[in-house]
């Protein structure tokens, strides 16, 4: 049997190391091609995970198990279920796009830039596939480093503040998680997640562990009020960094909720569900309003990301199949849509070196193809049916109305807010008469940019028109997860 999961982790990491060898400026072009080959190989090895996936079982698939640190019973234990498998594939696809997106844009330290993304891709896949607490923790923390470097080296003018804020925020969040992991090891004498799913825990203990895990993952998601690192990080990060940050790393926070919090701490989850739901709705509404007044496009999209991720945590804590599946669909869709939005801002930034909405106006006159893409992705961001953005939001709203009509009422406000902040930005940037000579001089998307956006556009539409395959993959695992949540561990 071919160890596809190991391949999906180590192919990009080794490719990244190989690219690093070509660190001289004269090798930049070769570095790009090696990176692209590595990213492509990394993507191709994840495809069997989808094609060979058995959607009828919630058991772990593609399991790999080897001793790592026998003394503490730490295992190199990999496996995916219907939930995590989608994110491994999404991540590998996004890495491919990001390498491609940085092709001509990145001119300094090309090899290091490409290597950072490739290595991060492997680490992220590791976090999604790890079924051992320590292994997860290592991957979870290690991926901070490449992202820190990407923001700190290739970022904007305030990159150092943003990078340190990002690093400290997330690190501080995850410190207590380590304590929680060790506590669980002491109780079960194992680091295997599956053992933790079974161990009985008293409510106070569950609540304490909940707090530890919640802090770590809510910072990553990010949930209100621990979200303020994200807009700064996005604004300063290079386009590729923003894409991976929004499309993938936020998802790891949300993934933590369903891999750790819900199944290990079901009683605390149910006990505290009201609290999480309120925070999620605050994210949806409060952040929606904040997004409205942003003057910087990246900041606006960053806030819109937080608002959309509010639907994810909301969906999880409704504890219904529709809610969780909607949340997961929202995660995948947000991967596509936020990536596309950041790529679009990148296209403009590469030409004008500005992200200020006020510097633009009438872009549609000079960049009609680009305007069409922006329109499509904006509509997806506003949750229009037949785009992927609709699926998750719709399912979560349906689940929320069923749980309590007022929850649905609050969540559905995003229909208005999401459209308002997205389309108001479109109005000011894309529509109108040509605002200034810089806009008049803009060239439409290059062939590389066109195909890059087209790939995401196809994904956005495909998932919107036929989301069934995505939901079918996750359904059995979601039911299994909810069975765990429903069973008391007291």
């Amino acid at each position, binding site marked *: 049997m071919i160890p596809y999961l190991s391949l999906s982790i180590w192919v990009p990491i080794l490719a990244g190391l190989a690219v690093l060898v070509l660190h001289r400026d004269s090798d930049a072009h070769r570095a790009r091609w090696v990176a692209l080959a590595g990213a492509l190989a990394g993507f191709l090895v994840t495809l069997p995970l989808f094609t060979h996936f058995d959607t009828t079982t919630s058991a772990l698939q593609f399991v790999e198990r080897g001793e790592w640190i026998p003394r503490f019973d730490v295992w190199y234990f990999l496996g995916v279920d219907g939930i995590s498998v989608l994110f491994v594939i999404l991540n590998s696809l996004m890495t491919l796009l990001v390498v491609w997106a940085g092709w001509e844009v990145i001119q300094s330290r090309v090899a290091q830039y490409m290597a950072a993304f490739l290595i991060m891709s492997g680490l992220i896949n590791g976090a999604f596939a790890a079924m051992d607490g320590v292994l997860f923790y290592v991957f979870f923390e290690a991926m901070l480093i490449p992202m820190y470097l990407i923001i700190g080296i290739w970022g904007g003018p305030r990159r150092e503040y943003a990078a340190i*804020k990002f690093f400290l*925020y997330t690190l501080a969040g995850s410190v207590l998680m380590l304590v929680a992991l060790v506590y669980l090891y002491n109780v079960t004498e194992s680091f295997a997640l599956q053992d933790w799913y079974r161990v009985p825990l008293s409510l106070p203990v569950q609540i304490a562990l909940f707090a530890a895990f919640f802090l770590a993952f809510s910072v990553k998601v990010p949930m209100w*009020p621990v*979200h*303020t*690192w994200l807009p700064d990080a996005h604004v300063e990060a290079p386009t590729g960094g923003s894409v991976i940050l929004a499309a993938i790393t936020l998802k790891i926070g949300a993934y933590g909720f369903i891999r750790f919090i819900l199944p290990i701490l079901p009683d605390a989850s149910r006990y505290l569900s009201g609290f999480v739901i309120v925070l999620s709705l605050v994210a949806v509404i*409060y952040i929606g*309003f*904040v*997004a*409205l*007044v*942003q003057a910087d496009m990246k900041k606006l999209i960053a806030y819109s990301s937080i608002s959309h991720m509010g639907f994810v945590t909301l969906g999880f804590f409704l504890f219904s*199949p*529709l809610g969780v*599946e909607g949340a997961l669909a929202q995660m995948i869709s947000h991967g596509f849509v936020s990536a596309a939005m950041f790529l679009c801002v990148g296209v403009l930034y590469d030409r004008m070196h500005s992200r200020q909405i006020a510097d633009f106006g*009438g872009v*549609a*006159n000079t960049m009609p193809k680009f305007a069409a893409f922006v*329109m499509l992705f904006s*509509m997806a961001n506003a949750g*229009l*049916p*037949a785009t992927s953005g*609709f*699926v998750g939001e*719709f*399912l979560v*709203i*349906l689940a*929320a*109305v*069923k749980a309590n*009509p*007022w929850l*649905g*009422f609050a969540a*559905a*406000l995003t*229909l*208005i807010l999401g*459209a*308002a902040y997205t*389309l*108001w930005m479109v*109005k000011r940037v*894309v*529509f*109108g*008469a040509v605002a200034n000579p810089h806009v008049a001089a803009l060239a439409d998307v290059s062939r590389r940019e066109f195909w890059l956006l087209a790939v995401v556009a196809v994904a956005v539409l495909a998932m919107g*028109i*036929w*989301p*069934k395959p995505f*939901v*079918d993959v996750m*359904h059995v695992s979601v*039911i299994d997860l909810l069975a765990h949540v429903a069973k008391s561990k007291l």
Partner: protein
Amino acid sequence: MKTLYLVIALAPLFASVVVGLYGPKLGRTVSHWLCILGVAVSMVASVFVWRDVQAGNVFNGDVYTWLASGDLRFAVGFLIDPLTATMMVVVTFVSLMVHIYTIGYMAEDPGYTRFFSYISLFTFSMLMLVMSNNFVQLFFGWEAVGLVSYLLIGFWYERPTAIYANLKAFLANRVGDFGFVLGIGLVLAYFGSLDYATVFAKAPEFANTTVTIWGDQAWSLMTVACICLFVGAMGKSAQVPLHVWLPDSMEGPTPISALIHAATMVTAGIFMVARMSPLFELSETALSVVTVIGATTALFMAFLGIVQNDIKRVVAYSTLSQLGYMTVALGVSAYSAAIFHLMTHAFFKALLFLGAGSVIIAMHHEQDLRKMGGLRKYMPITWATAVVGSLALAGIPPFAGFFSKDAIIEAVHLSKIPGHGYAYFAVMAGVFITAFYSFRMLFLAFHGKPRWTESAHDAGEAEHGHDASHGVGHEPDAHHGVDADHPPKESPWVVTVPLVLLAIPSVYTGWTYIEPMLFGGYFGDSLVVRPEHAVLWELKNEWHGVAAFVQHGVMSLPFWLALAGIAAAWYCYLVNPALPERLKRLAGPVYTLLDNKYYFDRFNDWFFAGGSRKVGGALFEVGDRGVIDGFFVNGTAKVVGLAAALLRHIQSGYVYHYAFTMIVGVFALLTWWVGR
């Protein structure tokens, strides 16, 4: 048959996608023929389907499963019954007329192929909406027509007014969608399905189910769900107070004002409520709300039609008012009368809009009625068709509008629903006003002395500058408009033929379809009316054929009100043109109120748009920057820095400091130990 249904929906989509992607390469002629062909195929097939449905062949089936979660299945599928088939024919027919008309109207526009792509996409979306057999696809079509409407209102995206209007339209519709989604959510929560057939079959079981929404007050589930759904209809069908977007939508090119903002899309809300009749019938309260909102829209929007000077805006307010009539009909459970009026209105209102467009072309994009006059001589076909449209709108027999409007008025008269008294007054008064503003428009544009012979650069220019501004690429000399040496010309055949083709059904659909649609079994099982609401059944007892209906009509009040309206318009605008000015001054405050459209726009701009920006700004500055980042995040960093700065003093490096500290420590420990 399923294949045929798919063809009907997908032919316009195919044309739209091809023209959208390759329009500039294909060229104008290929593009417009491709789009016209797509819609023509849909129309011919729709007529075929319509006849097939008349023969009793109702279809309900799925095309594919959109999403499944356990037992819950959301599908894309078609429900083809008389209601749907009627809508399909109306939509594809008007769409085809508009497609042909567009060749003439948009001839000079650089966005020609893009425009065709959009209107074909619209046709697809609207067909998906009406053909749906479930709520999810309905919502898809609902949002997709909203999207195309947004794109088309902002078609001339360089105009600030156009992109303001399209954003406004989208957001106002989203407010409606917000209610709509909640309604769909409630349906799913209780019925466990979003499939029409399943939901409607289960509906009676839930007639007495109550939900607690606030405190201990128990609400009927059907009332809450239906009002939520109706909020969606209020957005799409522009009912007060969500009507504000429709007048501004006139910023879009005139063909789409006819197609989207008069004949088809804005009637989606009417169609939806009629489709949901099995649900609405279970809630007296919801029906009452529908009646009152509809009556308010019908009357108060008609008033605004009187004070408009922009030809398109007169028609726009008239559309609002007529949508109000349809909504009233829904409220009094006369669903078939609502759909009947929807159909006749689609024909005569599309006709009036396209006629207005023909005038606008002839006047070189001048839309101000005060600068028209006497066009009858120069544009005989446009004039004749406009007369037909106006007579139909005013409700003069034997034109189509007479039958559909009179049926609504009679139905309201017989209704017992709470609010019917107010509704009856509103629809009655509305008749007079409707006749008045329609003939005011007709007289100002086509009759009297030409006012365009005066210089085009008079005072009115500044005030209504944007109305006169024209789309991208109209050659600059068009700006000079018409004068005595360059009189307006009749529009080309691509414009006049659709006018004539629309005038025909504006005449005859009334007397042909009133009997089957209202009193016969035309709609079959697609509309459900409970016996206690069956006003049309009562009306049927008085039905003695078309001739008797007309005879009864001309002897009853509405007809005389309509004639009075026409006469008043004739007196005010042709006999004594100084009178309106004098009335305007006399009516001072009332005129100001009407001129400001009851201040809805100003309130919305101030409260909703301005308010949300203020809220957003406050949350950002105080919440994010002040408290979270300023106090907690950077505060933590500062505290760490401060603590470090303090602690640093302890590590002074002097041995005597350490020695002293040690002695104090030992002393303290000893004291504690001994004292224990």
